[in-house]
């Protein structure tokens, strides 16, 4: 039993740490970046807005796996500059995830902004709030609140998407599960991996439910 633990489960838990690390890095970077993208899309400076929209369309319209492969293996192959574009595999994967998820979050936040009634802007204006005060005190809090369920969804998808690290050979949870399956000739590690993913998504679900209740405004 102890042996089983040492050989199979423990490596998988260590792999899961990689998954969790990636998750937090991506969430912490892609949400602010996504928000900046939303602002760029809303910008009155048209070229910036078009560029941001193009970016979002491309990132959402192509597979994340393709983007990861491109960043991990494709960039170094570019002539001349390629040799400066060789990152640590994990760092490269982080960059890929952040760039991709930022596009999704940008769309979510844009949807949140659209849902805010123009009466909110008008009320703020007749109360003498400046544009900045209106944005920070009236619009953004409501935007984040509206976006919360979609952000929750996206976060849960991210947990499962971390399995794509397997394809770019970053040792994470799934990698250790597969190794164990091959070595021990048993499918039990698959189920253990499933349980660990499930535990992570459940924790997230509970956390976001709590957030939604906390900011229900009722």
């Amino acid at each position: 039993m102890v042996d089983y633990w040492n050989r199979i489960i423990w490596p998988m838990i260590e792999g899961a740490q990689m998954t969790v690390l990636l998750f937090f890095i991506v969430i912490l970077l892609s949400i602010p970046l996504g928000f900046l993208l939303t602002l760029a899309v809303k910008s009155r400076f048209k070229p910036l807005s078009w560029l941001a929209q193009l970016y979002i369309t491309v990132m959402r319209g192509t597979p994340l796996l393709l983007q990861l492969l491109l960043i991990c293996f494709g960039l170094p192959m570019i002539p001349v500059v390629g040799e400066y574009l060789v990152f640590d595999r994990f760092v490269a994967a982080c960059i890929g995830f952040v760039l991709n998820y930022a596009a999704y979050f940008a769309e979510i936040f844009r949807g949140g902004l659209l849902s805010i009634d123009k009466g909110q802007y008008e009320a703020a204006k007749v109360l003498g709030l400046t544009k900045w005060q209106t944005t920070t005190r009236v619009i953004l809090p409501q935007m984040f609140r509206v976006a919360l369920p979609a952000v929750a969804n996206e976060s849960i998808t991210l947990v499962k998407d971390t399995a794509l690290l397997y394809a770019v050979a970053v040792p994470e949870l799934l990698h250790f599960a597969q190794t164990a399956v091959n070595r021990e000739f048993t499918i039990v590690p698959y189920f253990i991996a499933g349980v660990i993913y499930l535990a992570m998504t459940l924790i997230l679900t509970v956390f976001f439910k709590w957030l939604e209740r906390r900011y229900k405004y009722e």
Partner: protein
Amino acid sequence: MALIEVSNLKKSFGNQEVLKSITFSVDRKEVIAIIGPSGSGKSTLLRSLIHLEEIDDGSICIDGEYLVKDGQYAKQTEIRKITGKMGMVFQQFNLFPHLTVKENLMLAPKLRKTESLGEIEKRCYDLLRKVGLSDKADAYPNNLSGGQKQRVAIARALMLNPEILLFDEPTSALDPELTGEVLKVMKDLAEEHMTMIVVTHEMGFAREVANRVIFMDGGEIIEENEPEQFFLHPQHERTKAFLHKNWK
């Protein structure tokens, strides 16, 4: 000198002329009711006064200062100062749903930073008492009835000590049994000699509370008169037709 002076105000949306050379004035302490059929430009006129719409031509002078003179708007800082003398209450309340009642009232004064927090808080509770909502200070707007929301909206506008209050159909979104509590608050304000312009379908309120009734149709002021004269002896055919349909 009149508190509000509007002359030859013109406003189009695209090629639709919504306000056609409107001229009128409002004295301090007057309560004006604006009535008229749907689409006649009542809201647009009210919104122009507080710069929620930009007019194409004409002048708006508030308390001796031109918001816009012959189609030329004042500088941004001037505009803020001038529109700051007015408060507005909307048909759809437009309370901030993520803030409690108390926070709705205190947000703008707090950001203006001209009073201490203690003073702001005191006025907040005074005004909530005045509109009969002392017990709702910590409630969120979503948990209030329509009539309560509109009373909060009025209190919120009053927090900035406006010289003029504009109301755009303040009771039109309310169930009939809830209009009374809002009209009561407005009547109290009129008795305290707040200058008010009220776009309304409430003929009873117009007749009882207003000093003067303005009837608009097709982007023009057709007739204006004191309420008794207006309702009992309308001069214009269009006024008669409107009153016949909307008031018995």
